[in-house]
């Protein structure tokens, strides 16, 4: 068979495709478990980093896992704020919920919304960490917002992105930018949802002059900033019912506690 004949070329191509497919299949199979673990660990790290510096959590995977298991209690809710435990016959594991998939669902009522409760050493919930997802300039952006138990004040935020421009939009993932969200409020004085807006331009407004619903912008990254704003706006609205429920129940709790104290 000549090297340039059609039959030879066809045979060669098929053989090459088979070899490549087998090699890639094997590699995928061998790295599957490690990849799964890496993704899980990364999710845990991201959730935790909204609330504590990762240097405190630990370096190794085991340390992070242990810290996470000790401090995080996770649930999933729907848009009405009701806890959702099962989807069909499958139990919902909040860490495994693909925020991306839920984000793409058109029907609000179908969305599964994970909530991660951060408990201190005494087991008291000190923060509610909510995942957020949205569109940046080039690709998707996402993050986790930690709210104080009053469900109004932001305790911490962490953002990440797929392909925002380095030095411009990619800066949303910088600790310095994330820290700007700390202490901001998502409800206004009237008790209405107000979200937090990243303003246009950077350093134009004195930090003291920003309202409690505004953070300084990113120079040269207006569209990414707008993406962050939309993302927060949308997700606070989605979680609104749950937030209200937590507020109510915590109010009830304190009154019952007071009642108990009074009864005593």
């Amino acid at each position, binding site marked *: 068979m000549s090297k340039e004949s059609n039959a030879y070329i066809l045979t060669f191509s098929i053989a090459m495709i088979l070899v490549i497919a087998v090699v890639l299949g094997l590699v995928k199979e061998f790295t599957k478990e490690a990849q799964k673990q890496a993704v899980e660990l*990364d999710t845990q790290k991201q959730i935790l980093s909204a609330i504590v510096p990762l240097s405190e959590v630990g370096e190794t995977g085991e340390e992070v896992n242990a810290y996470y298991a000790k401090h995080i209690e996770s649930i999933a809710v729907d848009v009405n704020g009701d806890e959702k435990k099962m989807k069909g016959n499958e139990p919902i594991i909040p860490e495994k919920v693909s925020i991306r998939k839920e984000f793409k669902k058109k029907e609000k009522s179908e969305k599964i919304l994970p909530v991660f409760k951060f408990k201190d050493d005494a087991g008291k919930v000190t923060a509610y960490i909510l995942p957020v997802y949205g569109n940046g300039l080039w690709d998707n952006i996402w993050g986790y917002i930690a709210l104080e138990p009053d469900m109004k004040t932001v305790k911490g935020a962490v953002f990440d992105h797929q392909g925002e421009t380095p030095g411009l939009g990619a800066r949303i993932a910088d600790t310095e930018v994330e820290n700007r969200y700390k202490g901001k409020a998502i409800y206004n004085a009237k008790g209405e949802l107000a979200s937090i807006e990243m303003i246009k331009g950077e350093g134009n407004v004195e930090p003291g002059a920003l309202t409690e619903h505004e953070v300084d912008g990113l120079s040269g990254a207006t569209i990414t900033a707008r993406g962050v704003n939309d993302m927060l706006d949308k997700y606070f609205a989605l979680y609104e019912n749950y937030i209200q429920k937590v507020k109510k129940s915590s109010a009830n709790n304190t009154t019952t506690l007071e009642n108990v104290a009074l009864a005593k």
Partner: protein
Amino acid sequence: MATETATSMEATVVKKKSEDLFSKRRRRLVADPLDDSNPITVQVLGICSALAVTAKIAPTLVMAIAVMVVIIGANVIVSLLRNVIPGRIRIIVQLGIVAMLVILVDQVLRAYFYDLAKIVGVYVGLIITNCIIMGRLEAFAMGNKPYDSLLDGFGSGIGYAWVILVVAFFRELFGSGTLLDIPIIVPITDFINGILGTSLSLPNNGLMTNPVGAFIVIGVIIWIQRYFNGYVEDH
């Protein structure tokens, strides 16, 4: 008669084969791409990845290693197969081999270096289109023996690596004030201020974190290199 010529030719081929493992010619295969025929600064190939990943040293290092693995692997495989690859579909065969190696590298990164894979993930996939690799396969591996191709791939890989690492060094130092994420500029200015009693501070240069900064640094490297080796572009 014909068989005689064939055997004598074979004899010379065999003689060539016994060439010293690190003969002068083979050392040149490795050394040339470092300077005289550097893939980035002289051949001006692979610029896209040089612009994209060099904002920090850590991802640049990952990228450099990934490119080296792919270029050496692809060079050796193509060289081994060079006599059976049909000429008419050779480019697509080369591309298939490169793509396979790139996916392989990507999967391994995702499994064991997830944090870095997140930063360079997109760009690792783009190694497939890195002209340096296709260039070496087409220009060298298709016509040379596996060991020579290995050396050639190694040389080109190192030639690529040193340039992007130098670029990343300056971009991270001036753009973020750090090296490998360790703060450098701030402690140094603090130290100087401590001695002189001044209150100097060096702000980060946003241009350097921008891809434009990479162009400038590469330009300066090319300038310095050509000053020393006297290389002039042919017209």
